[in-house]
């Protein structure tokens, strides 16, 4: 096998690498075919964290986030979803949406709540994090390509 690998000309090598890249980028990753359900999360927002900070849902789920600020006014907006809400302490805010975008999305505070406000971050995981998987596979491919592609 290694003889075969070594004998291929650079054109062939890079062709194979390119093909593998395309495969990794576009091959569908088997996700769980779970039925979309209604989910509800109660998130407490304090300086400077959400609790819970990591939410996991399946694609298609109808998600309700109940945001309750516990010390000062906080907000929540989700990257990749055009949603935003604000909660004053003692006033739970509700946000309902359908998780139709798949992947890992950060959600952030939208009301200046103190020094670390720009770093008040949580994570919404919808289904498989395809970007992470494909990125990891591509990293392996990059390693292989850098070694093999350059060999004489």
């Amino acid at each position: 096998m290694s003889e075969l690998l070594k004998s291929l000309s650079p054109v062939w090598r890079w062709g194979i690498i390119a093909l593998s890249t395309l495969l990794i980028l576009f091959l569908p990753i088997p996700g769980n075919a779970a039925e979309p359900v209604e989910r509800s999360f109660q998130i407490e927002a304090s300086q400077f964290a959400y609790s819970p900070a990591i939410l996991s849902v399946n694609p298609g789920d109808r998600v309700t986030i109940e945001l309750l600020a516990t010390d000062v006014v906080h907000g929540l907006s989700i990257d990749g979803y055009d949603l935003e809400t604000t909660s004053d302490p003692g006033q739970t805010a509700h946000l309902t949406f359908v998780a139709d975008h798949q992947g890992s999305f950060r959600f952030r505070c939208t009301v200046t709540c103190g020094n670390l406000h720009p770093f008040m971050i949580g994570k919404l995981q919808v289904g498989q994090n395809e970007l992470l998987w494909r990125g990891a596979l591509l990293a392996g491919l990059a390693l292989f390509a850098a070694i093999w592609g350059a060999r004489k």
Partner: protein
Amino acid sequence: MRKEWIARSVILVFVAAAITISMVAWQARSRGVVIHARMAETGGWNPESLTVEVGRPLHLRLTSDDVMHSFAIGKSDEPPVDVIPGEITEVTLTFDEPGKYTFYCTRWCSVNHWRMRGTVEVTGPEAAAEAVEPPLYVTLGLDIDAEHHADVIPERRPSASLGAQLGAEIPTDYQSREYYRSHSPADLWQALRDEASLSSLTNQDLWDLVALTWQSNTTPQDLSAGQQLYTNNCAACHGETGAGDGVFSDDLKQPKTGEHAEMQAGEMTARPTDFTDAEHMLAASPARLQGKVLRGGMGTGMPYWGPIFTKEQTWALIAYIWTFQFKLEDAP
């Protein structure tokens, strides 16, 4: 050498420009009243006392140095104005009557948010001294700090609509506003129990009649206004469900120690009242509640809302608080 002098001038000009802009800006910002808002623990309003002549507009520029605040004048119809960190909000106020007005923060910014208050002294020709009517609990001679509990409590939450369906005659004395304000639900229940014409009704039925009476002394508009007041001002400590489990209730359970101990010197804060506790609430009259709301908790951490709420607002809020005990919606 000429090159050197040109170079030195360039540096001087550029750096001087930067500094001059800064200095000019520094001067410019001092014009006009700028109020900086901070959480009560780190200073509150700065400045916290203002003076203006009656009838003269007062231009205020408000900014926050830390978190979201809001600015409103107590007992006034002026809508609150958000005070946003790093940004300036402007508001112009004109006062028609001389006197001392309180301004306060209306968006919760810490457990001591309610202490964020300041005063506006409006000077002018002394208006005719109005007789200041003392609050009802004072007139009644009520000790609002005294212990109170109901001997008999309902099995389920009393409902005004069920009470209406009973079709019973409640003596008119008991339906008056004065009676409502000065008596507790337990008082009314006992009075109804002693009423011969109602002796066929069960205890629970009588509680429903009490709820009905309570409902007749308020309006849906008042309940709605009261709910808004409760949500904005009370829910943070007393809880959205009135159970005394609001987001700050844990902070209030024990006395504060540490760097902010001076704020609570001599105080022993206490857990916020549970409005869903029937034994406790049903033995309280609206006047007692009004007293607590106006005067505050004398060291328990309960704010005093006297300078903030108008009379109408206070009664509306109290009417809403009863909804934690009674179902006050209209009959279908």
